[in-house]
């Protein structure tokens, strides 16, 4: 009689100990995180200069000659377009329906915040643009090639080395159009207008990230890009994320908002929202959806 009880107790103990053990091995990354230096100010500008961004990212892609040529050609296109914007023949900017930055930009140079939720079998990164990265740590391999296609977030697997999550991502496709076909842009953006540098990776790029909590208020991501088709050597990058100081919940970017900057006579202008907005007079519940409203 005692033996079955002991067996039951032992089974429960082992089960709970296993579960608790797995849980306690998981670091506590709760809270909201933002990239140090890529945080926006109230006017929408970034807070770090390009020099600071390049330094903190450890920017220095070892581009091969083919990539150098692609970047140079692209920069020429950029210069022409910027000249057209300055001369007024191009309104500048563009519209798009998504908050998608895609990988690796969500990790490297996005003004959006994120939450990181580690569990034994999977770590999920949820960004305020509603992008999600799933990093499977259950021992699986990458998705077989015949079942795999490229997406803006790629195919990620990982494993834990102590409190460090090692992530391996392949099959990345840029969400951006207007770039060299098939290429993955990596961009560093500084605080002042037109302060950016860019390079391009090939579709075969592989990304190894080591992310860990540096201290209670900082996560650090050490990224290595392996891409023999575009780089002469692995490219090591780094980004640090800090706790969002004034917020203790996720607030999403609402990319479905109405257009406040229409193009009129070939130039952008502003159309302020009606006063029936959050923080102002509430909108009537039965307001017809999608009906344009003139500013008050």
């Amino acid at each position, binding site marked *: 009689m005692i033996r079955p009880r002991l067996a039951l107790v032992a089974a429960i103990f082992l089960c709970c100990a296993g579960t608790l053990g797995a849980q306690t091995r998981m670091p506590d990354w709760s809270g909201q995180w933002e990239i140090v230096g890529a945080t926006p100010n109230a006017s929408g500008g970034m807070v770090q200069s390009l020099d600071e961004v390049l330094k903190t990212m450890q920017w220095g892609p070892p581009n091969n000659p083919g990539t150098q040529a692609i970047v140079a050609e692209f920069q020429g296109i950029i210069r022409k377009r910027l000249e057209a914007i300055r001369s007024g023949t191009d309104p500048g*900017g563009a519209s798009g329906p998504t908050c998608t930055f895609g990988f690796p930009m969500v990790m490297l140079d996005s003004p959006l915040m994120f939450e990181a939720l580690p569990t034994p079998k999977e770590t999920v990164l949820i960004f305020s643009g509603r992008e999600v990265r799933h990093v499977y740590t259950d021992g699986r391999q990458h998705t077989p090639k015949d079942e795999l296609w490229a997406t803006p977030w790629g195919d990620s697997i990982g494993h834990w080395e102590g409190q460090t999550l090692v992530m391996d991502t392949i099959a990345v496709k840029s969400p951006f159009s207007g770039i060299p076909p098939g290429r993955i842009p990596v961009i560093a953006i500084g605080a002042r207008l037109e302060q950016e540098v860019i390079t391009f990776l090939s579709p075969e790029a592989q990304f190894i990230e080591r992310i860990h909590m540096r201290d209670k208020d900082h996560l650090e991501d050490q990224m290595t890009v392996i891409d023999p088709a575009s780089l002469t050597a692995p490219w090591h990058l780094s980004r640090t994320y800090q706790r969002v100081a004034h917020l203790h919940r996720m607030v999403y970017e*609402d990319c479905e908002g109405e257009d406040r900057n229409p193009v009129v006579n070939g130039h952008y*202008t502003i159309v302020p929202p009606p006063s029936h907005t959050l923080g102002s007079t509430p909108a009537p519940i039965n307001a017809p959806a999608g009906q344009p409203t003139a500013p008050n």
Partner: protein
Amino acid sequence: MRRVLTYALVAIAAMLTASSAFAHNSFAMFDQSKTVTIQGTVKDFRWTNPHVFIQLLVKNEDGTEDEWSIEMTSPEHLVRVGWKPGTLKPGDKITLNIHPMHDGVKGGQYLSGIGPDGQPLIGTPTPSQGQAK
């Protein structure tokens, strides 16, 4: 519908066109080479996506009044630096530094400001920090 991101990304947005996260509100309509200061009374603080607006009533020298539309960044960005939907209220008398519109429309891009209590609005750089933009 436009994207929400920042004018700091304008040049990139110029390269990466439709369906891009960087393809956002242009901010090209603001004259980045000019900064003007306006004083007035808040008519409305429109806490809305994709961008927040301050509607400011500004008195002219002849006694007439114009309504200016001052565009800020998104609510998601503003709450991260401490702004709230009630940070400004109708009737508040404030001073704003803005990049004005190219086309002469009474509006501009928010840069910094002085609140109704005479203190810098949240996120306004101190002189030692310079203008973070």
